[in-house]
């Protein structure tokens, strides 16, 4: 049940951010679906394994990257259009904000912890996307062949 609720929340949240980023209208649903899939994976890995904070973001961003690249091939638009809204739910924006807030409050120990954590989350998201992109680039010729065959 909680997964249904989380899927619903993340979908609508990504729709909101897509409008804020001025995503072309006909792509909003697709981008939000990729964001939803990413967030559900993130949420699942976070709930089974509380000590590891890198794995959830890594798994989520691989999913977003794969879905984004496949959508890019299907819909013939750049993959960034699907990836930027898609990673929004687990991007460590709140973490870097919190780091700076701790520094403003002179709490340097917490600042270092949250700062390192959000830096590594950002690195794992970037790694996940680059991995997915490179993987799709290898299989893309076959994918496009399959798509044109299906279109006929």
């Amino acid at each position: 049940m909680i997964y249904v609720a989380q899927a619903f929340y993340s979908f609508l949240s990504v729709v909101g951010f897509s409008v804020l980023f001025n995503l072309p209208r006909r792509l909003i649903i697709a981008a939000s679906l990729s964001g939803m899939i990413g967030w559900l994976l993130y949420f699942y890995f976070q709930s089974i394994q509380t000590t590891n904070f890198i794995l959830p973001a890594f798994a989520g961003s691989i999913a977003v990257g794969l879905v984004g690249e496949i959508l890019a091939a299907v819909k013939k638009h750049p993959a960034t259009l699907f990836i930027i809204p898609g990673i929004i739910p687990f991007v460590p924006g709140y973490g870097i904000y919190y780091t700076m807030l701790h520094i403003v409050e002179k709490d340097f120990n917490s600042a270092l912890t949250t700062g390192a954590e959000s830096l590594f989350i950002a690195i794992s998201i970037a790694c996940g996307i680059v991995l997915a992109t490179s993987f799709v680039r290898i299989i893309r010729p076959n994918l496009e062949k399959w798509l044109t065959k299906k279109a006929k």
Partner: protein
Amino acid sequence: MDQYRVKKIIQIATQTGKIMLQNGAETYRVEDTVQRMAESRGLSEVNVFVIPTGIIISATYNDMTISLLERVNPEGIDLECIDRANAFSREFTSTEMTLEAAEERIQDLNSPPRFKKWIRVLSSGMGGGFFVLMFGGTAIEFLIGYLASSLTVLWTEALDNKHLNFFIKNILGGFAAALFGVVFVRFIGIFDLSASINTVIIGPLMTLVPGVSLTNGIRDLISGELLAGSAKIMEALFIAIALAFGVGMVLQFSLKFIS
């Protein structure tokens, strides 16, 4: 092809790259687009160097080298612009579009259709509000987050026309986000309802926070664009500092005077 036309080709390619870069495209995509556009019209030895604040291009035609430097100011993320510039560059490289027609098309690229203001405000509320729920907020916190995010976006869009320095703009943005949160939380306190300020502020802050530029910066670093990546990460860091300044001011005051 005379010198005038060579210059024009380079200008068209750089302008397209500028539009993509301004609106948040990745560095390698901009470099690739500009290079393809210049090479498709017969220029050789095209070298493009892109950092978040500028594009440098040099190209050779008939033993004559021309280079151009274009200064770029980042404007935020606008995916419609990237999509259109990308489609335009494909058309430019694959068809025999005249340079004059291409210049006219570039003028159109600069003013893409945008959503109506009230749709933008309502959906930014949606973006921020549902974020509060994703982080385990309650229904009342969702409502406050929704209102505060909508108001914050309204406020930052009003600031956009004032051409403020990005640091000042983000201080004001963070200030407004925290202020709306604190005011609403105090307001519902009258009706004996309670909400956590920290959870409520997540919503409006998510519309301001530089998570995407940090991640994009690291993506650039991983793909070997060391200079562009470092610049983006520094930008993200300073936006975060500005936001924390703004929010910190409100939180300090609210601790002292309100509660």
